């Protein structure tokens, strides 16, 4: 694998609630290489989007600790004036909701042109238009020369998402962060958008951080996967290990709750309880403990660490060694039955 593009070291992002800081991202360490797709998976409230926003410097009120090394330079806590030289150019983001990410009062061509202008002051208006149309064509929008003159409301959801992607790739970023890029879309459009991201990655040799709760998308796209729960990474491995040999109880629970796959039974697995809110996160011991109350307390570590269980496969806490589903035979589990 080629060299590191982004290295996040011990990143913690905290937000102030009632005079006190609570960490939404807690001691996260991750690396993205060139031409690699790293997927961050988890439910709402797991801290996956907060991680992405920290990288992009979009938390105006959060407290960010740790290092975010982008091409070797620490960009954590850079002032906006300096960040703006990188954002939208070397690193850019595809936002989840195309309807709120686009300006409803601005023509599509001008919105793309704005990104171009910010990073290349010499580009003339007509040239920007021309290039905007070219970008739209590249993301598979039919008749791009017409679309540049249209407004967001005139386009369908899939088209708008492509416009967002066109804006994100306008300056050929080295790092592309895609936050739930296909969640709002129909499955055939989703397939096209994923193909598109994959092609762009290959063309530009970029690194991609894909944030999603859809494990199907992860299986299709990712090279490496980090599973997040309650602000921490609970499992990290290459994509095949995550799906074929999942270890952490949270990863295994997530997999068996997806309908109509080989992981699912007639009755889908339901994770007990709810994702704790930021204020109520258990700060000590295994954070997933409350969601698997049938497991004995002794299986958890007091201070859960990430353990390397096999080459480059990391799992937090020791509870994975003993974990079984409540409806599952304990002995069978002890004999090492795995899915896949």
């Amino acid at each position, binding site marked *: 694998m080629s060299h590191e593009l982004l290295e996040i070291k011990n990143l913690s992002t905290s937000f102030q609630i009632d005079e006190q800081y609570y960490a939404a991202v807690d001691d996260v360490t991750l690396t993205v290489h060139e031409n690699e797709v790293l997927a961050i998976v988890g439910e709402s409230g797991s801290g996956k989007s907060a991680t992405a926003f920290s990288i992009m410097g979009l938390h105006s009120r959060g407290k960010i600790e740790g290092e975010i090394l982008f091409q070797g330079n620490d960009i954590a806590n850079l002032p906006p004036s300096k960040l703006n030289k990188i954002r939208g150019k070397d690193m850019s983001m595809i936002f989840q909701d195309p309807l709120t990410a686009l300006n409803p009062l601005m023509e599509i061509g001008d919105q793309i042109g704005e990104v171009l202008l910010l990073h290349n002051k010499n580009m003339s208006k007509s040239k920007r238009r021309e290039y905007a149309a070219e970008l739209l064509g590249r993301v598979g929008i039919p008749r791009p020369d017409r679309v540049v003159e249209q407004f967001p409301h005139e386009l369908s959801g899939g088209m708008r998402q492509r416009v967002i992607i066109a804006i994100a790739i306008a300056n050929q970023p080295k790092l592309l962060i895609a936050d739930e890029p296909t969640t709002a879309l129909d499955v055939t459009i989703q397939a096209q958008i994923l193909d598109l991201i994959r092609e762009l990655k290959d063309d530009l040799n970029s690194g991609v951080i894909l944030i999603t709760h859809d494990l199907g998308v992860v299986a299709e796209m990712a090279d490496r996967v980090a599973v997040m729960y309650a602000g921490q990474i609970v499992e990290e491995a290459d*994509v095949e290990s995550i799906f074929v040999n999942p270890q952490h109880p949270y990863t295994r629970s997530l997999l068996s709750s997806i309908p109509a796959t080989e992981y699912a039974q007639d009755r889908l697995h339901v994770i007990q309880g709810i994702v704790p809110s930021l204020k109520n996160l258990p700060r000590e011991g295994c954070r997933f403990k409350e969601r698997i109350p049938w497991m004995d307390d002794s299986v958890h570590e007091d201070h859960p660490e990430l353990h390397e269980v096999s080459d480059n496969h990391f799992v937090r806490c020791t509870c994975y060694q003993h974990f079984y589903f409540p409806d599952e035979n304990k002995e069978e589990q002890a004999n090492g039955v795995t899915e896949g």
Partner: protein
Amino acid sequence: MALLKVDDLKIHFPIRGGILNRVVDNVKAVDGVSFEVKQGETYGLVGESGSGKTTTGKAVMGLNNITSGDIYFEDGHLNAEKGKKIDVRKDIQMIFQDPYSSLNPRKRVADIVAEPFRNYEKLSKDEELKKVRELLQRVGISADSLYKYPHEFSGGQRQRIGVARAIALNPKLIIADEPVSALDVSVQAQVLNFLQDIQEELDLTLFFIAHDLGVIKHMCDRIGIMYQGRLVEEGLTEEIFNNPQHIYTKRLVAAIPDVDPRNRQKHQSYRAQVKEEYQQSFYDYFDDEGLAFNLKHITDTHKVALPERG
């Protein structure tokens, strides 16, 4: 026996224009759809946004004006002339897509769930409260939540409150329009399991509208695939997923992500192959006006919109 029968349903919305605001054209949201939902089964209607699936569901609920066609429920004619029309609002209930906007934020849970009783049954305050408690218990919401407001609940809990309201009057048919698409997978699993339980307990018929094929495959006995206001294929769940015949169904099935990363190459080349077939033969599956053909039986249960010559 068919509980619900939809026969050649058409719903057109007029487009007005010009200085006299005349009707210049129609959007044919639903254009000749026929299907039956049998007592006790789960029937799934699948399609992309704009395919007309929600419009069809709303028409059954009586929330849309029907341009032509008939809807029968049990033995009654739902859209008959005035006077002969039967009132089925008690028997057909709906679960909506977005649990955040389908519950009135200014009402307490007790009032939200009691509303159907207040509209249809004269109950004393005590009886009403007792019934509301029972319903909440059935959907797994604790009784101390009676006087809370919707914002105090998580998405999954809200969706269950929506279900409690929908089953309050013991309906026979529940129309679930994308009931889990706004939820996380594990919460989604909870709501889907719960819908299955309720269905069995109350002998309900479910009419399930969704775009997520995984959810549809898990829940439904039979499936109808909609494309641009027409059904292009209908069959048992296994038939649709294992042996799709219409080019659009094939495209849809191929687009479902495969959860095994080891199949990635294989799945991608299969998808590329279907895409090629789609581009080459798309027009063979539609008539000169771009409409899907009428459905023809290829087995007893499997119907496909194929051209006359086959």
